[in-house]
């Protein structure tokens, strides 16, 4: 297991390098001038040239990249072109809302997905058909559309949840939960259906195995078989899908955080892209990459724990 962790961490280095290099190249290819964004309509060409000089934007692209990379290797992700604030500081502020959203979404998806998946597999019949039907619909629902519908009903109509905003967990746990409820549910709809269908299929597959029939023949209670034997065996693909869903949350947060004005990494990335603030975009992408690598590692560890056959 330790070997696996070390191997993954070593692999993370070239992965992050490739991500950083590609994202830098992509950002530089995207047209847009942060100096114009900052200075606005009253700026003269001389003002814009001066700001280019101050920001180092008139230096060769390769030089800009190596400067950034050298600093990044020393733990300095630079300063935002737009705000002048350290990128790392901005990312640290934005990380908790995004992580909160991702964890809450995954928790909701896991509980509902596994619960309903097992229920559908065990019950079969009408319940199974209904759950499968709803799941197919849920999978097709884009999270941003669900977000707007939820806002209309629960924030603007019933006024149960706030339409926007975020309260840190440390400040007020209840407000934290209430504030994240709608964004988390918006993303969780699709993720729940994904986990649900995977759970259902896995449980059905395990239920059809010979050893289950043998266990049943020995007179062990059905619930015990399900809890102790079927679920553990069915959990491996579910863990993988959960990990993928968790990673998928990070791609969804850019839109969802904008809709709910959640001050997370997605919003930071969106603002950075709009204003061609490449240090900020670069930093946010790097953070997302690190999160994905860490989640993948956790999924591998969980899979190994669940199934000794895949341990290294």
């Amino acid at each position, binding site marked *: 297991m330790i070997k696996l962790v070390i191997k993954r961490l070593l692999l993370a280095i070239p992965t992050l390098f490739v991500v950083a290099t590609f994202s830098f190249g992509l950002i530089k290819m995207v*047209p847009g001038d942060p100096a114009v964004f900052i200075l606005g309509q009253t700026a*003269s*060409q001389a003002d814009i040239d001066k700001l280019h000089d101050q920001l180092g934007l008139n230096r060769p692209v390769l030089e800009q990249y190596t400067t950034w990379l050298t600093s990044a290797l020393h733990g300095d992700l630079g300063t935002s072109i737009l705000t002048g604030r350290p990128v790392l500081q901005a990312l640290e502020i934005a990380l908790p809302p995004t992580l909160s959203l991702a964890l809450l979404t995954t928790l909701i998806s896991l509980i509902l997905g596994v619960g309903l998946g097992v229920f559908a597999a065990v019950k079969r019949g009408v319940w199974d058909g209904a759950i499968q039907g709803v799941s197919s619909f849920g999978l097709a629902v884009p999270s941003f559309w669900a977000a707007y519908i939820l806002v209309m009903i629960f924030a603007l109509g019933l006024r149960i949840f706030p339409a*926007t*905003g975020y309260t840190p967990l440390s400040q007020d746990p209840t407000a934290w939960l209430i504030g994240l409820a709608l964004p988390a549910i918006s993303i969780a709809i699709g993720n729940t259906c994904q986990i649900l269908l995977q759970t259902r299929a896995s449980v059905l597959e395990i239920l059809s195995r010979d050893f289950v029939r043998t266990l049943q023949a020995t007179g062990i209670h059905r619930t015990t078989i399900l809890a102790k034997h079927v679920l553990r065996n069915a959990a491996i693909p579910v863990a993988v899908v959960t990990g993928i869903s968790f990673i998928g949350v990070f791609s969804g947060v850019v839109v969802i955080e904008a809709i709910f*004005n959640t001050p997370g990494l997605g919003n930071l990335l969106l603002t950075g892209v709009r204003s061609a603030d490449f240090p900020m975009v670069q930093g946010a992408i790097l953070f997302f990459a690190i999160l994905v690598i860490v989640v993948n590692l956790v999924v591998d560890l969980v899979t190994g724990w669940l199934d000794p056959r895949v341990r290294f």
Partner: protein
Amino acid sequence: MRFTFGKRAAAITAAVSAAAMMFSACGGQSTQGGASTATGGTLTIAMQGDITTYDPWSAQSGLNGSLFVIGGLYDSLLNLDESGQPVANVATSWESADSSHYTLTLRDDVKFTDGTALNAEAVVKNVEYAAKVKTPGECNSYLTGVTATAKDDTTVEFALKTPSVGFLTDLGSCASFIVSPSALANGEDLKTTPAGSGPYILDTSASVAGQKWVLTRNPDYWNKGAYPFDTLNLQYFADATAAANAAQAGQVDMIQSVDATNDTSGLAILHTSTDFRGLMFQDITGKISKPLADVRVRQAMQYAIDRDAIKTALYSDSGELGYSTPFTSTSEGFTDALKTTYTYDPEKAKQLLTEAGYPDGFTVKVMEVPAIYGDAAQAIAGQLAKVGITLELSDQSADFFNQLKSGKWAMVTFNWTIGTNPVHTYEGLSSKTGFWNTFGNTSPTIDGLLAELAQDKDDAAYKATLEKIAKAFQDESWYLVPVLVSGATAYNDKKLSVTHTQGAPISFLYQIKQVG
């Protein structure tokens, strides 16, 4: 409607301002135009810009939003009334010998939060700092060539290298937020730590950089009555729909900037800025499109567009008819004659084209940025096609600035916000180094009139010169602008009463009152 020279007029203006200020400071329950002097509570504003610095001399294009924060943390020497006239604030009276020399008398009881006195010497230090700050703000240029001298603790004299009739308006708009001189020594700290004497102080524990800024009352402020709210909660919204949803859910009282046609927030709409927006003839010397060098061709294009139809179809109440000159119908210098210079007359357009040698029209490449003027550009293109002129619209949003500078586009879609001081508006448009004027076009007529305007000493002469400028912009036909588009602020009119200064991008904090 402008500042009139002479000590008597200045004294009257100051006296009226002071009386109004005292009235507002008295408190009680009196009502002024729907607003009352009720105090307390929180004002929550959704802003579309991040506050990147607390240094008013470095505040960049986010000034639209940062004006709320800067106006809360710092005192301005002067405020402005709705028509843009200076109103007393820290400066209680003012006088001027001519448009190059101004003397302001300051209050003697204003202190910065660090205990330093806001006196004439502090003003001098600010003017000096504004000229040398590393990243100059949007309003610093108003002080270019301005020298300030402290005559005594409460008297400061301004000497202007270039005469400016609108200097006091500039001071009231954004060029006199005074920073504590002790903080100016290390200006970099101002980015994160304000040092003002304004009605509010920053609550650093409740504020989060890039997200929200919480301001609480400055307990020592000298004019608390002018600011009714105990707390200001300013929140950054990257997405306009999110801000509208928050307003509908009752989470915000005001949205800094909204599309004037969009009432989805359920809030009242207050028209604020006016944008001179449309198509600009970049190539008026015919470098790449020979026909445009002939003023008759450019004028023909003015006759060929149906301004009414475009306004009705696309802008409704969020705009007013534009006559290809950067003057609104309420601008000083606007005359009804401007309305009839270019009436919709396709036949006249064809006649002018024929006279210019283009009876069959011509084709011209237009750099379009749909976000700026997309729909209207299409409409104009459709109308010009009827007289044989083909606009080849090309969306260059993705590479906007490089394309604008490239010199490849004979015409571009453009936008210019008409500000509080008309001189800056017209200078910015016609200046050789102006943002949009990338072909470096010059107009000796307009430049001459602007120089004349700066010297005009009485209202009649000033107005007459403005009228000539308005007509010159039309006659020279640099722009094709059928509609002037309004910017807007949205606010909860059940809670707030909001006024606005003509030309200001947003309302000033002192213009936001409580209802009831």
